[in-house]
């Protein structure tokens, strides 16, 4: 290069100045700190690289917060699919078109509420990866944290598996975003994975012994704030999933396992009817920048309506008044509201202000799993494992304490169908508008054709679809069935 040749024949002084400049340059290049952190928000490195006790505690709070993802939306969607009610406020025609008449649209409602769970799962996986490197935590506390995280992770997968049913879901999602998307697994395999994960969590919680959680629990977990008590919540979820497997996936061995799991949960006969509400809840607070109950509105609102079949199908008490559960949870709006030929007269008020049920209550808690549900599960399990008398007595407990109804006329000699009818009635009125019970029960007991159709052309759907974005990311057309595409 000309320059260098020129400078070689320069005076020594020029050479010295050139060297000096180069040295200064080297110093400049090397000395500066080029790693400027993003201080606007914590980054994932804060969580993974140096997890201290405090950081992990805030991450655990994040896990609790992420559990709220799509709770309200799911309840509303499933309520429509199972005809527990309709959304008639007219803001978006898809509420009564796509969701009721179809066709299902993977790019719209039918493919929604998927990313909420997977984002929660990614956060939990990040937390689980950080735990082994944690500082400031004892071994027992680490196990306790793992048990907690795995329980919630399993529950998110359970919700996803139920949602798409036979289409399956991807499970092995704990991978970098640059890798191929995880393969789909079948409905049965997905729920088996959930059961195994819940059992792993149980082992972690047992190993934690008497240690306390190294983080505060969220509202709704008030009675389950120690590993020992949390374990009972874990077993309750495990029993529920096993019953799903027994009915959805024809897993006959699951009934006995469900019985075992249920016996280790917080189920109790004592203290009824008060103890019916014992359990874990989604603890909405209604505070600014926290979560508000999304399924509550004033009686004058037009969005939430209870299906007329629930009004007409209610059983009567001895004195002729309706089932107490109905009286508590449903209220006559005093008018007839119609939107696109669907009508509503009664509204769900179970999340409204208890002292003035015409008023909404943004701080109303939504049940996650309660003793009432566990007793109903026990009835179901007992019937299917041969203890029909025990099943009927459990039904009667619920009828009496929750509904104020006379005992059932069922006997151990009654047919399966008769028992299922009574079981599903009680499950509906005990658990309506909290988890899509009518739709899920109709699916697993093959009774979708018993759900009411109010307009010609309306459909009852079997499951939700794989979201369009998931199909697009895998190079499929929309709608897609990746499970079948994989096996081809």
């Amino acid at each position, binding site marked *: 290069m000309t320059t260098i040749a020129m400078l070689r024949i320069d005076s020594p002084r020029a050479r010295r100045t050139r060297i000096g400049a180069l040295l200064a340059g080297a110093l400049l290049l090397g000395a500066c700190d080029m790693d400027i952190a993003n201080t606007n928000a914590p980054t*994932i490195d804060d969580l993974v690289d140096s997890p201290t006790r405090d950081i992990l505690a805030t991450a655990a709070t994040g896990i609790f917060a992420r559990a*709220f993802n799509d709770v309200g939306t799911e309840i509303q969607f499933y309520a429509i699919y199972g005809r527990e009610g309709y959304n008639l406020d007219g803001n978006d025609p898809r509420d009564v078109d796509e969701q009721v008449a179809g066709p299902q649209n993977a790019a719209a409602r039918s493919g929604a509420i*998927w*990313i909420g769970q997977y984002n929660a799962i990614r956060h939990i996986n990040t937390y689980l990866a950080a735990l082994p490197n944690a500082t400031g935590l004892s071994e027992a506390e680490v196990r306790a944290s793992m048990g907690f995280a795995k329980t919630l992770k399993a529950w998110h997968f359970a919700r996803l598996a139920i949602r798409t049913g036979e289409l399956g879901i991807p499970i092995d999602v704990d991978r970098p975003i640059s890798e191929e998307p995880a393969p789909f697994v079948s409905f049965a395999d997905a729920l088996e994975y959930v059961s195994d994960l819940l059992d792993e969590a149980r082992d972690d919680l047992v190993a934690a012994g008497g240690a306390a959680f190294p983080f505060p629990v969220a509202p709704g977990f008030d009675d389950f704030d120690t590993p020992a008590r949390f374990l009972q919540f874990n077993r309750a979820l495990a029993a529920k999933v096993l019953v799903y497997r027994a009915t959805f996936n024809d897993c006959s061995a699951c009934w006995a396992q469900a019985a075992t799991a249920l016996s280790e949960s917080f189920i109790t006969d004592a203290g009824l009817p008060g103890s019916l509400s014992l359990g874990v809840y989604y603890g909405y607070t209604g505070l600014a920048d926290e979560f508000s109950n999304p399924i509550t509105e004033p009686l004058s609102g037009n969005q939430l309506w209870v299906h007329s079949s629930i009004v007409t199908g209610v059983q009567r008490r001895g004195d002729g008044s309706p089932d107490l559960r109905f009286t508590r949870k449903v209220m006559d709006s005093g008018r007839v509201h119609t939107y696109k030929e669907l009508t509503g007269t009664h509204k769900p008020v179970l999340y409204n202000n208890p002292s003035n049920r015409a008023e909404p209550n943004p701080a109303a808690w939504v049940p996650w799993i309660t003793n009432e549900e566990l007793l109903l599960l026990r009835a179901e399990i007992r019937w299917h494992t041969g203890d029909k008398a025990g099943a009927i007595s459990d039904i009667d407990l619920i009828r009496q304490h929750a509904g104020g109804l006379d005992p059932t006329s069922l006997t151990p000699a009654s047919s399966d169908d008769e028992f299922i009818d009574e079981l599903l009635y009680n499950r509906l009125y005990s658990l309506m508008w909290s988890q899509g019970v009518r739709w899920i029960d109709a699916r697993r007991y093959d009774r979708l054709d018993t759900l009411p159709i109010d307009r010609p052309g309306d459909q009852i759907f079997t499951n939700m679809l794989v979201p369009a974005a998931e199909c697009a990311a895998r190079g499929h057309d929309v709608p897609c069935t990746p499970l079948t595409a994989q096996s081809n």
Partner: protein
Amino acid sequence: MPKRRKTPWLWLALLGLLLPAELAAQGRSITGRVVDGATMQPISNASVSVVGAPVANAALTDAQGRFTLTVPEGQVRLSVQALGYVRMEVEITPGQSQFEFALQPDVFRLEELVVTGQATTIDRRSATTSIAYVAGDDVKRVTSPTILNAMAGKLTGVSLQTNSGAPGGGIQMQIRGTNTLLGGFDPLFVVDGVIYSNVSIPGGRGFANQAANAQMEADAVNRIADLNPADIASIEVLKGAAASSIYGSKAANGVVVIRTVRGVAGAPQFNITQRIGISTPLRNYESRRWTREEALEWFDEDVVNYWFTEENPNPYYDNAAKVYGQRKPSYETIVDVRGGTESTRYYASGTVSREEGIERNTGAGRQSLRVNLDQEFGSKVDLSLSSAYNRSVNDRGWNNNCNNYACHGYALAYLPSFIDISRRNPDGTYIDPRQFTIVKSNPLQLAELGVNHEETNRFTGGFNLGWNALQTDRQSLRFVAGGGVDVFEQANEVWTPNELYFEQSEVFPGEAIQSGGRSLYHNWNVNAIHTLDGEGWSAMTSAGLQYEDRRLTTSMIRTQDLLPGQRNVNRGTQTSVTEELEHERTIALYLSEQLRLFDSRLLLQTGFRAERSSVNGSTDRYFVYPNASVSYRFMDLLGEGSEVKLRVAYGETGNQPLFGQKFTTLATPKIGGRRGLAVATDAGFEDIEPERLKEVEVGIDGIVLDNRLTWELTGFVRNTTNLLLERVPAPSTGFSSVPFNGGKIRNSGVEFALGVTPVRSADMTWVSRVAFTHYVGKVVDLAGQPAFFPAGSGFGGLGQTRIEEGKSITQIVGYTFTPDGGRSASMTQLGDATPDFRVGFVNDLSYRNWNFAAVLDWQQGGNVVNLTRFLQDANATSPDWATPEGQRRFLAASRVITEPYVEDATFVKLREVSVLYDVPVSVTQSIGLGLRHLRLGLTGRNLFMWTRYSGLDPEVANFGATAVRHPLDITPYPPSRSIYFNISVGF
């Protein structure tokens, strides 16, 4: 006039090579004079030299313009140069020994030095790329809100977009098309070597007015508004990648290099300029007249009876004229002094200006103080210092988009003209329009009580220290260290008190916002420049290191539900706060080589910049931006003294990733009173890289007809690859978006600049310039991503930009009518924001002591989305609503069909006019007082607009501060014309 002989250029080149390195001791002597070709006055300090000989052997003319030069025997070629004049090269035959050179004033600024590197310059006529140049005088002649406004119509390849007609700025510059989709879109501004911040920090008006996208629609002022046009000496726009490659990954959108006025040796010269003027609307909102029957169709009977009375059966009130009826005088006072000795030169100036707006209680003001100092220490060391303090104030008013009727134009679009908003209630307050319509705001009440105030304090200072380490006949070695600081603090206050009618309708009445930003930019560099001169050639090598640091913190405290009458942010119940920091650091080294061969006819320039930055995924990696360009000048090709230059240039620049794109942040959801951490749904891309722009530029420039005609013709093609894009990963990953590098866009175009001096005589000079620009941009490849709407693309379904593979980058899409009058199923292209071409005409006529100048700006084609008319149509207030065309549009508005609202933006605007009179020397001398000159004048800005566009101004953009921008008219501040009377005295 002495004769000049034509000489074939080839022989000339050979001759140049054959000239001996040293002049023979015996030669001959040439004497002569150098004079101004127009006035025939002598020129002192002109340099006369032999082409190809060392510069040190040049002769300088004395005060009478005389010189004596020793030249070798035989034919020689002489070069004569003087500051402000066009260089002249002349063949001297062996017999000639006396010569008179008449130099022409450099009206086309060909001799100006333009930057080629951090510390190197080149004269413009030799430059190997197209560099737009605006002299300081052209920027100062007519008062303008910012220097960018003053550049309209004068440059090729540059597009300027104002956000609205509000005083004090809010204008974006785009060079050679849209060069990014989601990345940074602003050119780099460098003032006296200091990187100058041009951020725009929104002030919160968008929140108070519930604009859909509050921050983007706040009509913020970008901070170039702080720079005082009165201090500008020159502005260069480095358009091509080859030219701006030296600035690396901040330069993909072009670089604007600004130099301020410096001192001149001599006795101190004072100048005082006083301007006083007034602004009036260029166009204003118009509203239809209603008959009583028409009113009854839209309004309740009692409302109609209230306004249509017996005394006033046909009420019509021009409410817009009342809102935009402020006519306060604007003024500007500039005082400056320059002077010095050979070794010390200074320039100091102070400016106070106030531009009053046409909307009530709006206006902008600027106070600035500058001191520039140049000091030489002996012959080896020189130091130049620049420092400026500036304070800008802006009351911007209430315009653009709202969702609570609290923008004036918005309310006016909904209010029928039979309602008089200036009527007052018995208690003195303005009437409440809610009694009569759904409109919740009385614009006059808002103008009276609302506060939308911005104040910025800024300091910019820099230095350049040069050391001539080595200086011989043949070579020189110079070291330059330089750098500087640009720091500002902007504070905004927005207050919409509880008494305002639209606040009374809110769940949480009353809103107060305190927001602002603190910015600190500093950059430092060291450079070494080595030059070597030979026989007919020279080589200049420069190398250096640079360090740049840019830091910006913005914050906002927003409170609603105020205590009545209170405006502090701690006097409400609903308070939210935000804070955000951006910080970026770059280290770079560069190397560049400039070779002049064949007596400077051939110029070769090449070099590269290697830089690493903290915003890249890999902060250790150096990204290299090379450039290479060549130009050759054909002398006397088209007549004696003519020059035709061919140039080809290739360069690469980059566009940095945005701060934070490489991080995956955690969200902080709150539950049970506790904050948690959770992985957010926006992933970061840890290997993110800058975008890369590669451009090829070719051009032919010419200077003919005795410097009376010059032209510059340039064609360019530029591809930007590795774009910063976002893709949607599989939702099962838990993420809904992740940035990545990919895709490609292309911009190509033609620029043509023509300069003509049709008249050049002792009494009169007429200089005419034309600047023509045409370019197109296309999305070539989107890396498999589906079409998407970029940030600030507009309102859903109402004329948006959409990025789609194979389409123009700036296409505007929307819905059309189906044959049966319904709405089309999907959105199709309805227009394009990029015009067919733009032409600027600048004419400058001097006759004796008079000077007339005018700048005309013509845009042909391009589209603007007129949502003001959409609102008016939907509410039956557009002036032609009752006509068939108006009714067709009314139908479109009710069905959200955009097609009738995408209008042709063709316009011709008379941007500047000035008439100046220099009082004759005889008169100034008789006045005495040491008066050197006295100049009177009338100047005007935006005086006329000819356009078929039905709205206020086809150039406004609601979402102006965005990469892919398009003119979008939604009830903006109306444009105004201003006229100033100027008086300027010099002592």
